[in-house]
Structures are given as structure tokens and as C-alpha cells.
């Protein structure tokens, strides 16, 4: 819509990235570069973001015997047998998935309740609550990990570091992100929809279940995804509070000293493409649906 109101030079700027250069010869290339400098720069920046992932992908096919440092030839063996000889990688991945699911469920439930309280009610002590929620996001992970470990150590023999302490830690640092995400979604809701439900004689519970919750659901889903990816990828807090239990990032970091086995690359690359596929399919679906309506 804004394209219509644009005049002269600014309209030319609005076209986006061009694939077909105008003019001839070297002049043509220079002119194309001039017009598309921003796009070239952005492409380079995206290339920078994806370079290590390309590296991980390529080396997941490396015929490496022990350490995966030098290219030794193409093989599918790593993908066919991703657990490797010892199976350590798979144990670590399983722990990470279990921790991820548990902490995501807990953080999403607790965080959603807090988000509703903050967005829908007026109460005393709101400022304090906001500060408590903001603090974990502004605290460096090292400090969170170290302080939580201090607490566990001070509790003496009551707590043994392991699976459950990792879950506790992960819920703690993802909670704030869940709250912020869900809160934003609740704030963007159109209040008149709920009023309409009330006008149609729905009671509070019905309104919440049939109108409010379905509308907030995308925000809750986004928060859950965020919580899972924060948990699955966390190394710093985990390394303090995990004891002898290995999560996937911890396994990668400790094996980095003697060379990461190729199976780790398989999991790294595999998860990346799986997640990318899911997100892009979702986007495609959304586009098709919005075109249909």
C-alpha cells in the first residue's frame, strides 16, 4: 500500500533484490552491485550464520575413525549408526530430550499462570514481581549456574546433583522467557472478543476455555518451543548443576578436548534440518491458509 504513495527515487528503492541487471557489460555488473549492495551484504551475513552449519553437515559424512578433524572421505556409516560403538552420544541425547520435555512442560505451565496474573489482574507488589521476572534474563548464565550450585551444596547431602537438578535449573532460567512471550500474546488480544462471549451468556470459565485460551494458544506454543530450545541447548548452567549426568551439549563440550566423534555431527545436523523443515512447513501451511481465506 505504501508503494502507491511513493514517488520517484524512493519507489526505485522499494523494489527489493533484483536478479536481472539492466545495461551491458562491466558497467552492468557495477550498476547491479550498486543497486543490490544491501542484498549482497545481507546474503554474506546469512552466509556467515550458516558457514559452521555447512561445516557440521559436511563432516557428518566424514569417514572419520576416531576424531573428526581431517576429511578422510565420504561415508553414510555415521548416519546409519548414529549411536556409535559406545552409545554415549545417544544416552546424552536422550537425557537432553527428557530434561527438555519435562522442563518445558513445567516452565510453560507455571509461566502461563504468571503471565495471566500480570496481564489480567491488578495487585499489590507488581513491581517486585516484575523485577524478579526480569532479573534471570539479565543475569549472566555463569552467575545463575554458580549460585544455584551454591544452594545445592549448602543443602548438604539432601540434594544429589543429576537429572532433577538439571530440570530445576532449566525451569528456572526458561520461566522468565515463557512469561514474557505469553504476556505479549495476551496483551495483543482484542478485548471485545471476550466481551462478546460474555454478552452471549458465557460464564467466566466458558469464556476462558472457549475464547481466551484458544486465542492465547499460539503464544503458549511459541513459549514452549522457546523453552525447549533454551533447555536443549544449554551448556553453562547445566555444567554447574549436572553432577556426572551427561546432556548433549555437555557431551559435546567435554569431547571437544580429544576430538568430537562424527556421530555428534550427525545429531547436530539432523536436528537442525528437522527443526528447519518443521518451521518452513508451518510457514508454508500458514501462507496457503491465508491465501485460501
Amino acid at each position, binding site marked *: 500500500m*505504501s508503494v502507491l504513495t511513493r*514517488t520517484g*527515487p524512493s519507489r526505485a528503492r*522499494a523494489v*527489493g533484490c533484483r536478479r536481472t541487471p539492466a545495461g551491458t557489460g562491466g558497467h552492468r555488473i557495477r550498476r547491479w552491485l550498486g543497486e543490490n549492495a*544491501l*542484498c549482497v551484504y*545481507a546474503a554474506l*551475513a*546469512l552466509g556467515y*550464520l*550458516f*558457514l*559452521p*552449519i555447512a*561445516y*557440521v553437515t559436511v*563432516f557428518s559424512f566424514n569417514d572419520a575413525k576416531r576424531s573428526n*578433524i*581431517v576429511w578422510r572421505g565420504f561415508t553414510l556409516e555415521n548416519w546409519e549408526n548414529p549411536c556409535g560403538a559406545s552409545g554415549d552420544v545417544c544416552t546424552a541425547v536422550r537425557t537432553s530430550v527428557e530434561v527438555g520435555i519435562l522442563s518445558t512442560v513445567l516452565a510453560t505451565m507455571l509461566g502461563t*499462570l*504468571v503471565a495471566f*496474573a500480570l496481564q489480567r*489482574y491488578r*495487585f499489590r507488589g507488581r513491581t517486585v*514481581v516484575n523485577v*524478579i*521476572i526480569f*532479573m*534471570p534474563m*539479565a543475569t*549472566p*548464565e*555463569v*552467575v545463575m549456574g*554458580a*549460585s*544455584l550450585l*551454591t*544452594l545445592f551444596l549448602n543443602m548438604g547431602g539432601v540434594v544429589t546433583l543429576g537429572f532433577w537438578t538439571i530440570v530445576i535449573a532449566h525451569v*528456572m532460567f526458561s*520461566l*522468565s522467557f515463557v*512469561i514474557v512471550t505469553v504476556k505479549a500474546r495476551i496483551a495483543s488480544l482484542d478485548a471485545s472478543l471476550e*466481551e462478546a462471549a*460474555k454478552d452471549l451468556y458465557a460464564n467466566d470459565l466458558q469464556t476462558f476455555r472457549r475464547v481466551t485460551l484458544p486465542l492465547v494458544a499460539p503464544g503458549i506454543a511459541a513459549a514452549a518451543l522457546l523453552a525447549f*530450545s533454551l533447555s536443549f*541447548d544449554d551448556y*553453562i548452567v547445566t*555444567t554447574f548443576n549436572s553432577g556426572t549426568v551427561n546432556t548433549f*551439549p555437555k557431551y*559435546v*563440550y567435554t569431547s571437544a578436548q580429544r576430538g*568430537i566423534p562424527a556421530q555428534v*555431527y550427525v545429531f*547436530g545436523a539432523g*536436528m537442525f534440518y528437522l*527443526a*528447519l523443515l518443521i518451521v518452513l512447513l508451518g*510457514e508454508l501451511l500458514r501462507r496457503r491458509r491465508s491465501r485460501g481465506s
Partner: protein
Amino acid sequence: MSITSVSRVNPTRPGGNRRARPARSEARRRHVPYLLLLPGLLWLGVFFVVPIVTLLGTSTQTRVPGGEIGEFTQTLRLANYWDALSRYQEHFGRSVLYAGVATLAALIIGYPLAYMIAFRAGRWRNVLLVLVIAPFFCSFILRTYAWRQILADEGTVVRTLKWMHLMPEGASLTATSFAVVCGLTYNFLPFMTLPVYASLERIDHRLLEAGYDLYGGPWTVLRRVTFPLSMPGVVAGTLLTFIPAAGDFVNAGLLGTTRTQMIGNVIESRFVDLNDYATAACLSFLMMAVILALVLVYIRRTGTEELV
């Protein structure tokens, strides 16, 4: 908002009988927010606030003379802070420097990227946004490790640079501060790009057109209109990049040497390997103080105080 206003009792309304019910439900409603908050805040209280306070207590403890390693007693020794600061001031300096340079580099790389996605991407906008976040789908330790391999002495990058005589023979990229900054920039680039994009996307296009109408060239409009309007995003991105980068120890651990260690490395090794809890606690609070001070100065300077 709407729920509370709906339930509010209208005092001028006649009929005491009708008033009794909403009044009771309002009394009940007063408890509702606290009940909703309770589990979440309890979790944060027990596993975040209490630990921080415990750590504060640990920071003034001293080692028990002749005791076991890791055995400490409370002596309220504030000089611990001074000792830690003077002993590790080099690491503090390095953390601030590396994180600062990485933040600046992320801004230089991320701002044009965000600008392109916001103004030029058209219908590819959502796909490009996904691509900016996509690296997070791959383990961040693994990506950092991949950088170590890419920048390795026998790697293509170094060999090409040497072949083009842009790098002297015998020099290397890994295990340098360059590699650490490169890794930090890489890892936190999306944290810069996304907030900048969010604020660029919100800019009213008519303001930019007004700039062009007033005979501003592309650079003038960028400098005088677009960039100032995107300032909240730049500030948010800077904080989201600088704070985790200053506390990070993975990049310095994987891409650096002992001479490029940051304060996070010291805290981690003091705490986990050496059981020197008091020093680690002091360093943690000193780091938070340094970060907080820098953030406050930065926000004061950029004049976006409504952010916090």
C-alpha cells in the same frame, strides 16, 4: 483489565441483595492473581533469588585454616572483593573489551541484515526471519567447535589467506583473541538482528518518505530518520548481545588460549575445578556490577530510559 472492570461493584446501584454477590466474588478475585503467581514465583524465589543471596553470603567467607578443600567459614571479609578484583582485573578488562567489540561487530553485521529484511524482503520476510533464528536449531557448542575447525591452521580459510599473502607464514587464527571475538559475534548475532528488525519494522514509512520529500538523500534519511527511530531496537540488541557475551566462557574456552581467558572462564574454573567458592562468588558479583554499571551508562547516553 477487562475482567476486573466488569466485576467491579457499582456503589450507586440500588438493592443490597444484588450487591452482595459481586462483592463476595471480588473478595475472591483478590486472591486469584496471587494464586496464579504463587507456583512460578515460588520457583524463581527458591531457585533464583535464594541462590543469589546464598552466593552473596559465600562471597565474604574465608577458607578454614587447615580444613579440607572447599571448606569455608563465614568471616564477613569484604576484602575478598578487592583481592579478586586486583588479581583478575586483566580478565575483567578482556571480558568488557571482547564483549564490546563483538557487540559492535554484531551491530555492523546485523543492522543492514535487519534493514534488508524489514524493507526489501517483501514476501520472503518471514522465511528470512526463520533463517536468522535457524542457527539456534543446531547445538551452539557444536557450531562454536566448527568455527575452531574452520579457522584451524590446516583449514581452507587460513591456507587461502596465506596463499594470498594476507597472512604471514606461521601465524594462525585459532587460539587468538580474534577467534574468540569472532565466535562471540557469531553466537550472539541473532540477538542483535531480531530486536533491530522489530523496531525497523514498526517505523511508519511515511516518515521516511517525508525525509525523501525534504530532499534528503538515502544516507541522510538513514542517519537522521531511520537510525534514530530504530534506536530502541539497537539498545535492546546491544544489551541482549553484550550481557551474555561478557559472561560467556564457551567461546574463550573453545576458541582461545589461557591468554585470552575471560572472567566467565575464571568463575567456572574457580568454582568447579578448584572449589574456591568465595573467589568465584566475588567475581560473579563484580561482573554483575560491571555489567550493570555499563548498561546504566549506556542507557543514560542513548536516552531510552523507558526500556527498563
